[in-house]
């Protein structure tokens, strides 16, 4: 296990509360199941110096699937797309998920007729208000100990919470963040927390040589891509200070790589290769009906197999992954 620096913060969050707290580069945020366990935790986070960059479960799901695990990373949103946290520890009994978004008061009004029920949107909003952020700045949560799945029709399902007392998840901050762990407010009427809302504990550990070494590796391998855009790259970079949208008549979009300049290529296939192309089409293995489309699909798929970087093999069709 990675060695951390000394603990600098230790706090119990009673139901249904949360806390916004800076967690700096190289520090580890530990979130712990208190009481008997089985408490769902919602988590938001922001770049401490630019609140417009924030944790993004969609980006994270695209890279690591619906249920990230120990060893995976948590990303910020496009076009930043940086690793924000590395998941250093996560027990098997913690299901982390990226499907449930965050519960809100309207959900409970719609589903169960509540005038007002505790909910993650409002708890997160109250916590980040300490930093002058608004309810609109709350974003979809990275949910810990939330036992969702997907049924055969593609709909989200919710099972009992599998967390045990003492379980903990360790998140290593890759840059300075405002981190916001909260006690999910849904679990007294849903199975998210097994019908009893409980406290959670969180702790922050200072950087150590080992955590900083991991940060440096991630900065080098993941956070130094030319397309991870910074505010200085934005054509429109000023944050709108009013709410109404008005058209800027002088604005002209500059879509990337437009026009795409398709060029014809004449490919000679021998009889055996052409039969193979027809077989691929007959079996429906690749998209395309015409010879041109099937051939292009095969060529591009081969390119993906050759070019996909380690850890990002999801771009290759599953049947062709080793």
């Amino acid at each position, binding site marked *: 296990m990675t060695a951390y620096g000394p603990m600098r913060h230790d706090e119990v969050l009673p139901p249904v509360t949360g806390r916004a707290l800076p967690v700096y580069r190289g520090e580890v945020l530990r979130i712990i199941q208190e009481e008997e366990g089985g408490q769902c935790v919602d988590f938001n986070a922001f770049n401490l110096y630019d609140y417009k960059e924030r944790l993004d479960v969609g980006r994270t799901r695209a890279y690591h699937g619906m249920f990230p695990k120990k060893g995976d990373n948590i990303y910020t949103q496009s076009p930043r797309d940086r690793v924000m946290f590395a998941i250093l520890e996560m027990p098997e009994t913690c299901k982390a998920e990226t499907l449930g978004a965050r519960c809100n008061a309207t959900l409970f009004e719609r589903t169960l007729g509540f005038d007002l029920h505790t909910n993650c949107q409002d708890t997160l909003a109250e916590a980040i208000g300490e930093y002058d952020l608004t309810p609109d700045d709350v974003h979809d949560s990275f949910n810990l100990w939330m036992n969702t799945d997907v049924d055969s029709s593609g709909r989200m399902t919710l099972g009992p919470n599998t967390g045990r007392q003492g379980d903990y998840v360790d998140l290593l901050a890759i840059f300075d963040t405002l981190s916001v762990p909260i006690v999910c407010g849904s679990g007294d009427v849903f199975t998210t927390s097994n019908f009893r809302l409980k406290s959670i504990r969180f702790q922050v550990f200072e950087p150590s040589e080992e955590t900083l070494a991991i940060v440096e590796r991630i900065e080098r391998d993941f956070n130094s891509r030319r397309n991870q855009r910074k505010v200085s790259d934005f054509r429109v970079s000023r944050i709108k200070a009013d709410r109404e949208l008005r058209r800027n008549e002088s604005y002209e979009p500059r879509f990337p*790589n437009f026009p*795409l*300049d*398709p*060029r*014809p*290529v*004449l*490919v*000679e*296939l*021998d*009889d055996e*290769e*052409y039969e*193979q*192309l027809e077989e*691929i089409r007959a*079996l429906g*293995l690749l998209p395309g009906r015409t*010879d*041109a*489309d099937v*051939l*292009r699909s*095969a*060529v*591009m*798929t*081969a*390119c*993906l*197999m*050759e*070019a996909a970087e380690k850890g990002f093999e999801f771009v290759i069709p599953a*049947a*062709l992954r080793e």
Partner: protein
Amino acid sequence: MKTVETEFNRQQRQLLDKLRAKHGLGPDDAEVARFAFRRYVKAFLPAKEKV
């Protein structure tokens, strides 16, 4: 022998360039495309047997 006319846009040609560089292929995109097609078939046949 059969000639299939397909097309690649500028981004797709970048991937062809990667393949060209990796395998020391010539400048003709058609040659690279045929090489890639063969690579796909080679990978696809074992996958088909699994099915």
